[in-house]
C-alpha cells in the first residue's frame, strides 16, 4: 500500500512541477510578448495610413442602347440605387442588386427639345439644373431616401421639379440653346444659375425664393473679345469663375447679390480651359485644359493685401483634354476624366494622383462619386454603367504631409501646421508632425539644460565629498522626489509657478545672474581666510558655507529688482521683451516647463549617476589621493571618467523620461502647436497631443491613426534612447574600468 501511495504522491509532485514550469515560462515569455504586442499593435493601427487607394468593380449595367446620350448619373449613400438621366429627359432608377428598373420619371420637355447640359448644384443633395436646346433651364431634385420595414432597409427614389424658366424674353422665334451651365443651391436657400447661350451671351440669374423677381445679369461685356468655354459657381455662390478658349479665367464676386462685379482676371493656361470645378470648402479651384493640364489654384492674400488666385498644386497631366472634373462631397478628393476615357483620382492637399484607370475604350458620358465618397459611378460611350467601390480611407496623409511643409487653403505659403479639427464639415485637416516633434524636443531641451548640471554636480557632491551620514539621508530624499507624481508637479507649475514667475520675472532673472557673482565673491572671501583656519571646517561641511551665499543673493535680488526693472526695462519687463525681441510672454511658457520637467527628471539622473560614482573602486581614488592630487583633481581626472558610463546612462534615461512625460507638459504649457524656440512661449508635445486628442478622435479615422503613429514614434524614440544608453554606457564602462 505504502509504495503505491508513494508512487501516486510522486506523480502528483512531478505533475505539479511540470505545470509550474509551464506557467512560469509563460510568465517569462509573457514579458516579451507584452512589449512586442504593444509595438505590433501600434504599427497595426497606424499602417493603414500608408495603404494605397484602390477601386473594385462592383456592378455593371447595360443601359438600353439607343442613341440617347446620358447627361447625368448618381448613386445613393448605401450604394443600392443608381439613376441615369438622358438627353430626352428620361430618368431611370436601377436597383444594383438585380439590375432592375425600380422607377422611371421624366422631365417635361417639348417634342423636339433635348437637354444639352446638366450640372449639380449642391454637395449634400442631388439637386441639379438642366439646360435645353429650347432655352429652358429646369431645376430638379432627386431623393433616394432609406425606409425601414421589418428591420429591412429599402431605398425609395423620388423626383420633383423645383423650378423652371425660359432664358430668353425677346419675341423672336429663334431658339437659344443653353450651352454652358453652372448651378448653385446655397445653404440659405438661394438659387444661382450662370449660363451662356449659343450667341455667346453670358447670363447670371439669382433667385431668392422669398422674392418674386430674380436678379438677372448680363455679364458678356466683362469678358471682352474672349469666348466662354467653361464656367463654375462655388457651392455657396460667392464666386463665379469663367474660363475662356484663350486660357483666361475671370472672377466675378457675388457676395452682394445686388452688386455683382468682375473682381479679377488672369491667364491660367496657353490652351482653352476645358474643365473647372471647386472642391469642398469653396477655396480650391481645379482647372483642366485642352492639352490635359490639371492644376488647382486657390485665393491667397499677397503683400499688398489683395486676394489673388495662385497656382498651388500641379497634378500629373492627362494626354488628352480634360473633359470632366467630379468632386467628392466629403473630402478634397476629385476625379479628373479626359477625352480618351482615362480617369485620374487625385487628392488636392497631397498633390497626389492616387489612381489612374480606364473603364473601357469609350469616353465617359457621365460620372459621379457617392455621398460617402466610397463609391464611383461611370457611364461610358457604349451606354454601359459601372459602379466601383472606392477604398480610400486616409487620403490626407502621406509622408510629405506628415513631415514636410504643406500649402493649406487660406495660407500664403507652405507651412508646418498641426490643426486636426475645425468647426465645420468642410475643414481641411492639417496633420503635420513637425510642430509636435519640435515641441517635444523643445521641452526636453529646456528641461535638460536645467536638470543635467544640477543633478550631476549634486551627485558628485553626495558621492565624493559629503559625509556618510548626509549621503544616507539625501539618497532616500531624492528617491522620494522621484516618486512625486508628475500630476502634482504639473499642477504646481501650471497654477502656482506660472503666475509667480510672471509676477517676479525680473527677480528670477536677477537671481540666476547674481548667484554666480555672489558665489565667486564668496569663494574669494573663503580664499582670504588663512588655510589653517579653513581646515577647521571638516571636509564635507562646505555645504554650510553655500547656504548663506544663496540667502544673501536672494535678499540682494529682492531689494534691487524693482529699481532694476524700472531702470533697465522701462518698468515693464514683459513689454520690453515684446518691443525689443518681438515676442509675447505667455504665462505658461518654456521656462516654467523646463523647471518643472527638469525637477521631475533630476532624481533619475541623480540616482543613477550617484550609483555610478559611488561604484568607482576605492582603490582608484585612494591611489590618486595618495599620489598628492587634491580631491577635485581626483574627481575630475579619475572618478568622472571611470563613472562616465553610468553618468551617460543616467542622462539618457532622464532624456527618455523627459520625452515621454505627459502630465507636466499638458498642464504647464499652453498646448499650442507652434514652431518657436523662444523660451517665452509654450509648445505642444507629442505626448500631450495624444492625451488631448485621442478621446475625441473617431475610431479608425485618419486622426486616430495619426495619433497611433505618434505613439509609435514615441515608442521608437525611447527604444533608441534605451539601446543607445545601454550600448554606449557599456562601452564607456569597459573603456574606463580596468580594475
Amino acid at each position, binding site marked *: 500500500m505504502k509504495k503505491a501511495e508513494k508512487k501516486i504522491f510522486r506523480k502528483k509532485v512531478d505533475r505539479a512541477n511540470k505545470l509550474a514550469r509551464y506557467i512560469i515560462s509563460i510568465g517569462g515569455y509573457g514579458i516579451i510578448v507584452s512589449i512586442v504586442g504593444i509595438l505590433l499593435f501600434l504599427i497595426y493601427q497606424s499602417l493603414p495610413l500608408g495603404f494605397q487607394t484602390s477601386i473594385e468593380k462592383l456592378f455593371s449595367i447595360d443601359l438600353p442602347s439607343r442613341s440617347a446620350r446620358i447627361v447625368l448619373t448618381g448613386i445613393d449613400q448605401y450604394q443600392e440605387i443608381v439613376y441615369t438621366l438622358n438627353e430626352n429627359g428620361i430618368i431611370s432608377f436601377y436597383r444594383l442588386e438585380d439590375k432592375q428598373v425600380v422607377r422611371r420619371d421624366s422631365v417635361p420637355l417639348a417634342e423636339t427639345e433635348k437637354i444639352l447640359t446638366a450640372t449639380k448644384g449642391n454637395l449634400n443633395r442631388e439637386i441639379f439644373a438642366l439646360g435645353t436646346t429650347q432655352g429652358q433651364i429646369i431645376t430638379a431634385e432627386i431623393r433616394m431616401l432609406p425606409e425601414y420595414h421589418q428591420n429591412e432597409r429599402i431605398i425609395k427614389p423620388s423626383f420633383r421639379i423645383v423650378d423652371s424658366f425660359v432664358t430668353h424674353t425677346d419675341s423672336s422665334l429663334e431658339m437659344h440653346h443653353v450651352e454652358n451651365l453652372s448651378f448653385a443651391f446655397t445653404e440659405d436657400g438661394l438659387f444661382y444659375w450662370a449660363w451662356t447661350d449659343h450667341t455667346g451671351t453670358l447670363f447670371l440669374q439669382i433667385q431668392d425664393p422669398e422674392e418674386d423677381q430674380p436678379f438677372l445679369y448680363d455679364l458678356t461685356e466683362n469678358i471682352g473679345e474672349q469666348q466662354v468655354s467653361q464656367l463654375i459657381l462655388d457651392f455657396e455662390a460667392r464666386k463665379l469663375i469663367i474660363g475662356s478658349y484663350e486660357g483666361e479665367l475671370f472672377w466675378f464676386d457675388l457676395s452682394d447679390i445686388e452688386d455683382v462685379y468682375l473682381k479679377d482676371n488672369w491667364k491660367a493656361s496657353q490652351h482653352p480651359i476645358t474643365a473647372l470645378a471647386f472642391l469642398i470648402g469653396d477655396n480650391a479651384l481645379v482647372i483642366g485644359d485642352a492639352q490635359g493640364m490639371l492644376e488647382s489654384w486657390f485665393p491667397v492674400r499677397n503683400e499688398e493685401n489683395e486676394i489673388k488666385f495662385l497656382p498651388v498644386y500641379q497634378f500629373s497631366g492627362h494626354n488628352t483634354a480634360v473633359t470632366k472634373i467630379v468632386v467628392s462631397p466629403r473630402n478634397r478628393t476629385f476625379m479628373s476624366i479626359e477625352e480618351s476615357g482615362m480617369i485620374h483620382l487625385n487628392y488636392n492637399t497631397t498633390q497626389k494622383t492616387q489612381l489612374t484607370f480606364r473603364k473601357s475604350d469609350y469616353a465617359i458620358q457621365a460620372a459621379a462619386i457617392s455621398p460617402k465618397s466610397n463609391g464611383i459611378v461611370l457611364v461610358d460611350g457604349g451606354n454601359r454603367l459601372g459602379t466601383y467601390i472606392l477604398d480610400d480611407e486616409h487620403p490626407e496623409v502621406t509622408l510629405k504631409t506628415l513631415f514636410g511643409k504643406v500649402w493649406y487653403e487660406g495660407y500664403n505659403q507652405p507651412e508646418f501646421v498641426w490643426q486636426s479639427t475645425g468647426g465645420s464639415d468642410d475643414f481641411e485637416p492639417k496633420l503635420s508632425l513637425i510642430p509636435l516633434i519640435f515641441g517635444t524636443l523643445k521641452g526636453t531641451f529646456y528641461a535638460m539644460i536645467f536638470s543635467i548640471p544640477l543633478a550631476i554636480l549634486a551627485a558628485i557632491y553626495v558621492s565624493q565629498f559629503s559625509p556618510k551620514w548626509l549621503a544616507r539621508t539625501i539618497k532616500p530624499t531624492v528617491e522620494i522626489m522621484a516618486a512625486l507624481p508628475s500630476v502634482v508637479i504639473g499642477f504646481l507649475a501650471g497654477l502656482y509657478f506660472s503666475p509667480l514667475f510672471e509676477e517676479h520675472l525680473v527677480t528670477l532673472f536677477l537671481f540666476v545672474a547674481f548667484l554666480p557673482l555672489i558665489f565667486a565673491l564668496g569663494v574669494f572671501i573663503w580664499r582670504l581666510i588663512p588655510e589653517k583656519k579653513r581646515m577647521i571646517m571638516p571636509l564635507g561641511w562646505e555645504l554650510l558655507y553655500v547656504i548663506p551665499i544663496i540667502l544673501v543673493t536672494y535678499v540682494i535680488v529682492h531689494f534691487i529688482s524693482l529699481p532694476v526693472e524700472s531702470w533697465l526695462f522701462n518698468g*515693464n519687463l514683459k513689454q520690453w521683451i515684446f518691443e525689443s525681441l518681438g515676442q509675447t510672454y505667455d504665462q505658461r511658457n518654456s521656462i516654467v516647463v523646463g523647471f518643472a520637467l527638469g525637477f521631475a527628471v533630476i532624481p533619475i539622473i541623480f540616482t543613477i549617476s550617484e550609483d555610478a560614482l559611488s561604484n568607482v573602486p576605492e582603490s582608484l581614488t585612494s591611489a590618486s589621493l595618495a599620489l598628492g592630487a587634491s580631491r577635485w583633481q581626483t574627481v575630475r581626472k579619475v572618478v568622472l571618467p571611470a563613472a562616465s558610463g553610468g553618468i551617460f546612462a543616467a542622462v539618457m534615461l532622464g532624456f527618455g523620461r523627459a520625452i515621454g512625460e505627459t502630465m507636466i507638459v499638458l498642464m504647464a504649457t499652453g498646448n499650442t502647436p507652434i514652431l518657436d524656440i523662444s523660451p517665452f512661449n509654450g509648445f505642444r508635445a507629442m505626448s500631450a497631443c495624444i492625451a488631448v486628442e485621442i478621446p475625441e478622435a473617431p475610431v479608425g479615422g485618419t486622426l486616430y491613426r495619426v495619433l497611433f503613429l505618434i505613439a509609435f514614434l514615441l515608442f521608437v524614440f*525611447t527604444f533608441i534612447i534605451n539601446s543607445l544608453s545601454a550600448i554606449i554606457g557599456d562601452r564607456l564602462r569597459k573603456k574606463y574600468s580596468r580594475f
Partner: protein
Amino acid sequence: MADRISYFRQKGDPYILGTGMALILTLGMVIFIVTVILVKGLGFFWPSDLLQADLPDRIYLGEVWDETSKRQTDRNGHIIEIPEIQLKVGNRELYGSDFVWLDEAEVSQRKYPLAASTFERYEFGNFYGYIRSVQMGDSVYSQEPKFMFDRAKDAHDIALENRSRKRAFEEELNELITPLSRLQREISLLEIETSAEKQAELDELKQKAAHLETEISEKYLELSDEIQKLTRENEGIFVRVESADGKKTVIHLADVVRFYQPNDMNLFQKSVLYISKLWEFISANPRESNTEGGVFPAIFGTVLMVLLMSIAVVPFGVLAALYLNEYAKQGTIIRLIRLSVNNLAGVPSIVFGIFGLGFFIYMVGGTIDQVFFSDKLPEPTFGTGGILWASLTLALLTLPVVVVATEEGILAVPRANKEGALALGATRWQMVRKIILPNAMPGILTGLILAISRGAGEVAPLMITGVVKLAPSLALDGVFPFLHLDRKFMHLGFHIYDVGFQSPNVEAAKPMVYTTALLLILLVICLNLLAIYMRNRLRKKYKTAVF
C-alpha cells in the same frame, strides 16, 4: 599671487563648493515645493476670520483669499506697487461671482465683527452675512446675536435630521416602486408588438402590474405622506440673513452643511471645526462641481483600481522574475527578456494609455460587447473605458517595477538554502514554493508597494481608459454583481488635473486641489518609505547571506 590662484584652483575648493551648491539648490526646491503644498493644502480648512472692509462705495464682508501687489507706473514714470486684497465674498446668487479685488488704499476701515457668520451650503457656495432672525415653524427668534446663533444651531440640527430621514424614506420609496416600474417598462416595450402570443404575454404582465400596484399603494401613500411632511417642515426652518451691504435674503437650514461665526471662535473651537472639515474631506462626496466637500469617491476609486492592478501585476511579475532567475537558460532568452523589461520601463505612460484604449477597450472590449452584451448595443458596456481596463493598462505599466524588485528579493535568498533543497530531492517547483517565495517576500512586497505608488500617481493613461470627473456610483456597491468592472471611476491624480484645469471656477477650487495633492503626496511618500524600509531589511539579509 598667480601661483596662489592656480594652486587654489587646482585644489578645487571652488568647484567643490559649486557641487555643494547644486545639491542645496536641488534640496531647496524639493523642500520649497513640499512646503508650498503643505501650507496651502492644510491651511484651507482652517476657518478663516471674516474681514469687513469699508470702502467709499460699498461695504464688503468676506474671507481674505490673497494679498498681492500690483505694479503700476505713476505720473512720474516710476513703478509703484499697489497692495491689493482678494476677498472671497461668496453670496453667488446676489453678486454673480465669488471674488473681488480691493485696493488697500481705498479701505477706510477694517473690522472683524463678532456676529459675522459663514454659511457653507450645498448649492451656490458660501454665504457671508449677519443673522437677523431665526424661524422654526411658527416660532421666530430675533433677539441678540448669541441667542439667535444658538437657536439657529438647534434649528439646523432638526433640519439636518429631517433631511436625512427624508432621504431614507425616499430610498425606501424607490426600492418599493422599482419592480413596478420595471414591469411597466416591459409592458411598454411589448405594446408595439402585434403578434398573438405577445398579446397574451402583454395581458399577463398588465395583470401582474395591476396586482402589484394595489399591493404597494398603501405603503406608497404612507411614505409619500411622510416625505411631504418632512419637506414642509424643513421649508419652515430658515434664517433671515443680511449681507454686509444690506441685501436681505432667506437661507433654508436644510440647505446648509455647516455654519459658524469665525471671529467669535477661540483656538479650540476652530481646531475642532478644522478636524471635522478635514474628516469631511476624506469621507464625503464632492460638492459644488468639485470645489467643496470631500474626495472620498476619488480615494475609493484609486484604492479599488490599485487593488485590481495588483491582482493582475503581482502574479505576472513574480512569474517573470522566477523564470528569469530559476528556470531560464543563460543566453539569448534571458537577454531578450531583460531587454524587454528595460524597454517596458522606458515606454512613456501615454503610449500604454493609447494601447489600452485601442487594444483593451476597442478591440477586446468591443468583442466582449458583441458576444455577451449585444442586446445593449450600440451602448457600450465593456467597449468603453472602465475600471477593469484601466487597471490592466496600469498593470502593464508597473510590470517592470515588480519584476526588478522581485528579482532583488530572489537574489537575496542564500544559495545554500536553494541548493540544499534541491540536493535533498525536492523538485524545482517545491524548492521555489518552499524556499524562494517565502524568503523573497520582502522583495515582492517592495515591488508591490512601488507599483501601488506608481499607480496612485500616474494619470495620463488613466485619462483615456476610464477615469471620469464625477462618477455617479462607485464601482463596488451593494447591488449584484457587487464589483462592476465596466463602471468608470474617480482617481485622486486625475482629480487634481481635472479640478485644477477643467473646472468652471478654478479660483475657488484651487485650495481643494492643494489638499488633494497633499493627500496624494502623503500617500505616495508613505508607500515609498515603506518600500525603502523593506528594501533595507532585505539588504541586511543579503549581507548575511554571503556564503
